[in-house]
């Protein structure tokens, strides 16, 4: 094995290679790798954020849907109640109207009957008086017998 100045030549070559690598090869490559790592990390973080946002939005949408459904049900409920109420009210009013009309009819009939009764009574009284006159053959002093007539009429 012969050692010789190849050793020195190789030392110089080694030093130059390492220097060149340190100066011109390693930094740009490492910078690019680190830059890409950062980009990928950012991308991953962004996608994670987006996933979280999506979840949030979905939860919100579900909530809103539920709320809307509840509201719709409430409105429907109210409408039904209102409708029932209206029907009830109308029915009651109808009943009342009917009662009123019937009562009016009764009152009118009653009044008519009273009037007819009075009429009849008067006619019967007149008939009775004229009958009595015929029987007695003379004039009855209506004035004088008035109380009797009155009594008669009242009895009818």
């Amino acid at each position, binding site marked *: 094995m012969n050692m010789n100045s*190849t050793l020195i030549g190789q*030392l110089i070559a*080694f030093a130059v290679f390492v220097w060149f*690598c340190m100066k011109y*090869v390693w930094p740009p*490559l490492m910078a690019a790798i680190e830059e890409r790592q950062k980009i990928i990390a950012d991308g991953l973080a962004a996608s994670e954020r987006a996933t979280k946002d999506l979840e949030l939005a979905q939860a919100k949408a579900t909530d809103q849907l539920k709320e809307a459904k509840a509201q719709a049900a409430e409105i429907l409920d109210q409408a039904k109640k209102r409708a029932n109420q209206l029907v009830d009210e109308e029915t009651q009013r109808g009943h009342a109207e009917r009662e009123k009309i019937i009562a009016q009819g009764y009152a009118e009939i009653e009044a008519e009957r009273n009037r007819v009764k009075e009429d009849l009574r008067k006619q019967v009284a007149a008939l009775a008086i004229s009958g009595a006159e015929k029987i007695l053959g003379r004039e009855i002093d209506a004035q004088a017998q008035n109380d009797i007539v009155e009594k008669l009429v009242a009895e009818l």
Partner: protein
Amino acid sequence: MASEYTTTEYIQHHLTNATMCNTDTGIAFNKACADAGFWAIHVDTMAWSIGLGVLFLYFFRRIAKKVTTGVPTKSQAFVELVVGFVNDNVVSTFHGRSALIAPLALTIFVWILLMNLMDLVPVDVLPTIAGWVGQYGFGMDPHDVYMKAVPTTDLNLTLALALGVFALIIFYSIKMKGVLGFAKELSFTPFNHWAFIPVNLILELVTLFARPLSLALRLFGNLYASELIFILIATIGLWQLPLHFMWAVFHILVLPLQAFIFMMLTIVYLSLASEDH
């Protein structure tokens, strides 16, 4: 295996580096450099290692220049895979911030891996091509043209890497703990008593120097051995084909593993150096 060699010559030929040196008569090669001593240089190791290092840096730099944070091209995805792999290891092992450790680890891993992968090129291909070039291009005897194409089988290279790491270990130790702190750590661990200072120093200095040595020898030893086995398999005739295949498949594991171990140990050593006990 070329037939005009004996087995020993063949193996020796494959395990000899192409050497260049400066002699009195000008630049000389190979056998003329036998006594050039330290001032010879292994041309093949230098050329392949620098070539592969430049290839690595060129490819990564090209991607780094047009890097996009959006959808990456396939080659960018590949580069990012490698960078991410190295960065994960650095981050999980080295606590603290340093602009140097991670690029250092990347360079070590990819460069050593590329050099190790030269081991999978069939052992005769590159020496034969080099022999042709030497023979027909320069009129040389092809036996005198050497080409050891796996740079990590050259102890010069692995030791250079390890010494570079060692220098950084010293640098980080002093930077993080100060000269005094570093000296104190060497003197007072593992036995925290002044009487044990010499023992501590011996233990700690051995530990300290064992680190680059083990780094260099582990990589060199593994690759040299595996290359040697490849060459040995190449000497046995037709049966080399299934054996080569099996040995190569095994090295799909070994080669990246050795690069990974070198990188991990570098990170661990630097991490230890920059931590206070």
